């Protein structure tokens, strides 16, 4: 008896439900069946070799690259990651002091987790952030409480990425709201200034802004005045992210019906109250998907600071590979970096989906249930 004749009457088969599921989901039409077969073939060709390379034949022991040389070609050299993980996470921060950025990373993650809970969206959260960030900088710089001073030129790795991304978004987001409101202002001077800023910044690559911040800006400053390189890079990134976020926010503002503005005005609300209490809460809610999209892009764009000599996560990986003993393990190193980026970006994405759902609850959602 052939399988084909069975599938005509799948109910009679033992395990018929599984067959039904397969038919409904994977083989419901000729193209779907073809796609399923192609994907199965690719999985069969790619997955087992990858598992063999990444796990079975992989070298985990540290103690030099000799074992990796022996496994070259058929096994991954995770020993490189084990060996270099502290450099990748903390950059050139003094080795003995690396518990400080380590603690800093944990503090950052704790701040993200606390802020993600809506029950914590209270005024005190602002103080928690201020306190948390002050503590992180205290840890990183030191110079007090017996912690040796570490200049920010030596900060690096994942910690630097988190600093650039967190400060970048925290500063750029509120400023972008002002910029978006300015672009819709009824005052021509304000509107024109905002349009020029947005179009100018969006018209140049981030790299050129970073170059300007690191190379050109010092030329224009009076002698004796110098702005820290990290700060300059941070400002350039904020300026860049602001322009993009402003356009996202403006899209949200445009989606709010005129009646909402009129109702707020008719009640005697001033411009700022109207915006803060009525318009922005609605506009930002509908802007969550594109906002998070921009946040994610920005998080990864922080890796461009490598061109002005800052060692973020990705450049730390690259620099580690320059050591002759470990050259040639780029795949492992970049996979590791990709995994870290992915963990942060995927969390942002999942969180934004949950947030959208939560904020929609009590409105359209309940209406549909009734």
């Amino acid at each position, binding site marked *: 008896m052939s399988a084909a004749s069975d599938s005509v009457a799948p109910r009679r088969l033992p395990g018929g439900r599984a067959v039904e599921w397969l038919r409904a989901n994977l083989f419901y039409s000729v193209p779907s069946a073809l796609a399923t077969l192609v994907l199965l073939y690719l999985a069969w060709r790619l997955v087992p070799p990858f598992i063999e390379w990444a796990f079975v034949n992989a070298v985990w022991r540290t103690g030099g690259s000799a074992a990796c040389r022996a496994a070259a070609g058929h096994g991954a050299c995770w020993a490189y990651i084990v060996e270099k993980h502290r450099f990748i996470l903390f950059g050139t921060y003094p080795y003995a002091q690396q518990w400080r950025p380590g603690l800093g990373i944990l503090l950052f993650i704790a701040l993200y987790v606390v802020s993600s809970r809506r029950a914590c969206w209270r005024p005190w959260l602002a103080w928690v952030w201020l306190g948390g960030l002050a503590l992180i900088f205290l840890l990183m710089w030191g110079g007090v409480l017996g912690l040796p001073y570490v200049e920010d030129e030596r900060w690096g790795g994942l910690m630097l990425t988190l600093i650039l991304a967190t400060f970048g978004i925290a500063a750029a987001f509120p400023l972008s709201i002002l910029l978006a409101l300015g672009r819709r202002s009824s005052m021509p001077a304000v509107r024109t200034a905002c349009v020029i800023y947005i179009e100018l910044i969006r018209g140049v690559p981030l790299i050129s802004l970073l170059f300007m911040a690191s190379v050109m800006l010092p030329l224009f400053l009076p002698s004796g005045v110098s702005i820290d390189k990290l700060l300059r890079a941070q400002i350039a990134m904020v300026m860049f992210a602001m322009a993009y976020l402003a356009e996202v926010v403006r899209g949200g503002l445009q989606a709010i019906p005129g009646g909402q503005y009129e*109702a707020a005005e008719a009640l005697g609300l001033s411009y700022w109250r109207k915006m803060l209490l009525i318009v922005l809460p*609605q506009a930002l809610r509908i802007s969550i998907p594109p906002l998070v999209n921009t946040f994610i892009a920005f998080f990864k764009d922080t890796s461009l600071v490598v061109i002005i000599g800052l060692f973020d996560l990705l450049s730390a990986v690259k620099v580690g590979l320059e050591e002759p003993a470990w050259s040639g393990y780029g795949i492992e190193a970049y996979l590791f970096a990709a995994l870290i980026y992915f963990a942060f970006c995927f969390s942002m994405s999942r969180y934004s989906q949950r947030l959208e759902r939560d904020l929609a609850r*009590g*409105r359209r959602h*309940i209406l549909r249930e009734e």
Partner: protein
Amino acid sequence: MILTSAAIIEMKGVDKWFGEFHVLRGIDFSVARGEKIVICGPSGSGKSTMVRLINRLESHQRGQILVDGIELADDVKAIEAIRREVGMVFQQFNLFPHLTVLQNLTLAPTWVRRMPKREAEELAMQLLKRVRIAEQADKYPAQLSGGQQQRVAIARALAMRPKVMLFDEPTSALDPEMIKEVLDVMIELAREGMTMLVVTHEMGFARTVADRVVFMDRGEIVETGKPQEFFSAPKTDRAKLFLSQILGH
């Protein structure tokens, strides 16, 4: 500016253009305290625009408008002061969808009038009882029917304890079976002595509560009169034509 009459709203020689379109032509009009006025007229006659001038949702280009003795001009503070005293109900309700019914009512009193939260909530619950919707206080606007939303909108405007209430076609967006519940609330409000300007085609409402009916056409006030006079013996041909159109079916 010294208040010289009992009028709470005075318009003198008001003109308004939308671009090339002359929406209001030489409007002279005043409303006494406690007066209830129904404004009617064909669509595009400028009746909504006239009401929206009173709280400066639109601005006029010529003439003078005084509300409670304050002249409406570009002074933002004066405009906000007038808006605090003038409540408005819109055709499309315009409730704030991200706030509960109760929050819709307490928002302006707490932020604009600086009323303590507790007091604002008590006032809001009183008003919701008055519009017979107190049990919906914790729902969101989208969970209410059109008639319920419009009653909430009336309560929201009343929460500012306004001296004047403007209604811009308050029942036009409602299903027929919901019109009465909104009109009943408005009739009650009128009986309590509120000064009201109502743009509507509900002639039954006009007969019941209006002190004066104002008929507008092509940006002009064509005729004003007591409701019984206006409906039974309109003086102008334009008013006759309009009445025959809306009462004819």
